[in-house]
């Protein structure tokens, strides 16, 4: 059994896994679990369910790895699976939206100003997360992939299977909608 190198590319890991190398799958899991869980959690606005949805994502990867075309970027493929799992989850549950804003208490790094001022900043952050959470799914997904995951529009277009200009337009609209909501809430 060969050792898996940390510098090896995702696609090579996939090839190894297809050949039966379990450690390759472990490595893929370690590379993507954290960021995908973050995407799922903020996309769904539900910290409790994100664990299960993440599990679904990797189950699909594990079971359907044979269908992955190694000519494509693995990251785009797994992100697409994650986005689809989120869609499925929303459809299945149709539950009332909740937010993860309450968990985001450490967005403040500078201990300047009075505690009250800091609290107001904390409130700004809460309102920001609520604004993101209030976006429609298609805008929120683009915003998270771009703003949080730093994806290129070409990659976003692959993940969402939409034209690049559509992804760019959705990003612009997402930022505008967030700005509008923050204004309406008198946050800015």
């Amino acid at each position, binding site marked *: 059994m060969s050792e898996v190198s940390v510098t090896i590319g995702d696609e090579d890991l996939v090839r190894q896994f297809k050949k039966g190398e*379990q450690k390759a*799958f*472990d490595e893929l*899991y*370690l590379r993507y*679990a*954290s*960021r995908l*869980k*973050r995407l799922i*959690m*903020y996309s769904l606005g539900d*910290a409790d369910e*994100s*664990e299960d949805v*993440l*599990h679904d994502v*990797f*189950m699909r990867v*594990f*079971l359907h790895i044979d269908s992955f075309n190694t000519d494509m970027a693995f990251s785009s493929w797994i992100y697409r699976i994650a986005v689809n799992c989120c869609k499925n989850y929303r459809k299945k549950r149709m539950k009332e*939206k*909740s*937010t*993860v*804003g*309450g*968990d985001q*208490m*450490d*967005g*403040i790094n500078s*201990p300047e100003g*009075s*505690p009250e001022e800091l609290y107001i*900043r904390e*409130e*700004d*952050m*809460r*309102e*920001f*997360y*609520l604004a993101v959470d209030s976006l429609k799914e298609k805008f929120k997904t683009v915003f*998270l992939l*771009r*703003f*949080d995951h*730093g994806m290129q529009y070409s990659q976003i277009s692959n993940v969402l299977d939409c034209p690049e200009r559509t992804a760019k337009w959705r*990003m*612009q609209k997402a*930022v*505008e909608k967030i*700005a*509008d909501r*923050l*204004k309406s*809430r008198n*946050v*800015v």
Partner: protein
Amino acid sequence: MEPHIEKEIIAIVEGLREDGRCSDAQARSLSSIFKRSRFDDPPIDAPRGLSRVRFEAARVRGRHTSARAFTARTKVLMAAASVFIIAGAAFLVFSTGDGIIPPETAAEAVIGDVTFERSGTVSVLEAGALLGGGDMVRTGPRSFADLRFRDEVIIRIKQNSLFRIDRLARDRNGSLRAGLDLSAGTALLSFKKLQRGDSAEVRTPTSVAGVRGTSFGVSVSENRDVRFEVLEGTISVRGRVVIDGAGPTDETARGVLEGVERRLAERAVAVEANEVCEVKERDARALAKKIEEILLVLPEKGRRAEERRLDDAITKIAAETATPRIYTAVESPPAHFLELKQMAIIREGGGESVVTRWERERPVEFDQNAWMDRARVSYVITDDARQLFIAVGANGRIDALRLGTVVWRFRCGSPVNAQPVSDGEIVYLATADERIIALSLDNGKELWSRKIDGVLHFGARLSIGGDGIYAATAKGRLYRFNRRGGEEWSLRLPAASYSTPVLDGNLLFVPVQDGKIHVVDTVLRIVVMRIDSGKIIGSSVIVRGDRLYYANFDGVVACHNIRRDETEWRYQLNGAVTSDPVIDDGFLFVVSSGGDVVKLSLDGRVAWRADLGGPVDRSPVVTGSSLYVLSRRVFYVFDTEKGTVQWSLVTPSESASNMAVAGTMMYFGTEENGIYRIKK
């Protein structure tokens, strides 16, 4: 955020500004918010996640490839996963035991100068640190710390505070055990609703609050006065003994302290939503002084009589310690409600903006009609001069209303089991834990509290006469207090008394369960006459000149000439008389448990008699030409002249209180249908 993405977003915001969709200042704020925002990584348990995927994937593959036997590798994987899961489950089970409890309370936000002390070592508290039992957090000026225990408790320790976690964990049975201590400053606490078996307590230097799942703030001032503000739910507050230093080491002395604390705990007061409770340091200090006096003369072990006296003394000083004072939010506006609301929302995981939810859930103004619809009261009293309507719940809750607003509240910490009486300035209460409490009618302030031996039972009330307060108890003790709470004298009666003593001049008429009315000279403090009356229970006697009118448990109504010490007439009713007869306009009105309502002249002739067919055990009320009678489920209005029922009202549930008159209104409480307010 990567620089090129930041630029892109700032360009979008700039576009909004150029289009006039936001001002310069708003654009700057928006850019600042986007720059500061980041999405934090959620916690992830990779080994567990991996095992779960492998395990389930193996099962799914197994189902879909039934023709293929499990490979040796799959079996190993499954076995490994099983071991991992079992080990994980075992960890979950055993790590919650009562042994060494790992710190679980996380410092979520720490601002300014915040330190914590663990095992004598002081360290700077940083966000993310875990705290546990024994850790003490100190906040400096302009500083605060937010602590979180799972999704169950959030604690905000505000500036200049000293806060200790004695315990904050779930025990081996999964029950929450929270013991917290605030020595100085302010802490805001938001608890998820506690379940059966959970216990949570917040101690301060002068008081202890028991929690049942609630949001509240507690502040300890520099002089150690303590203030609780309850936003949601209920806490029970009691005083505690403040002994400087390490406290006594002697076993008997420790027993004294524990005895007092236990008795204080028995009369903890419930502080409900939108209420404020204050415990004054001077009250705790006064209690401590009394205890120190006791500790000076502790009896030797084995001396039973002395030990009994010590126990009585402990009971007395605990009973006479001031009850924690309740204020309405109007009387003493709370300072931390908005912040507490924000914390509760954060604990629940957010959902909508704090402002929106606060506006939605802001407590509505007190609605007297709604309150009266659901209030369960045992006694109602009115004070025309102050336009007060006072409702007394059986649980010791007292609400004083004026013009549709609660003007003061009081919690006795024990049920009230006698109809309160008022002298126009003070209302006097007798409680089930054998106390008399005097409250100012102006503001509900507790003026004094005195221990008595025995409760007032079966309709007996305190009696106000001259400048004294009289109480005859079910343990056969007769007391006289002055209006300042001084016990002037007490006498032992030959048996229990279940009736209200009545003063006429210097003579006090006390029905006793030996079947006699004992006439006590209140100056000489001796019994000067005993009148054979039969057992009187719940019914008061009436003295008019030389004549004494009474009605007993056998249904006999009688007139006794005091001067000649002879009974002038008797009249028999069906059933027992357990309520007060009333004299009005030269006639005596009496009701009985046999359903009789009778009007008698003062020389014993029947003017009219009616049979209601069901028991009447509430005292009737006469105003003008109407007699008001309250049976179990029917309110009757009689014409006093003719004895006919003018009208009646059936209540869906049984009446539960006396009747009280205020101006043109008549009030009475029912078991389940609130308080009735009827225009006379």
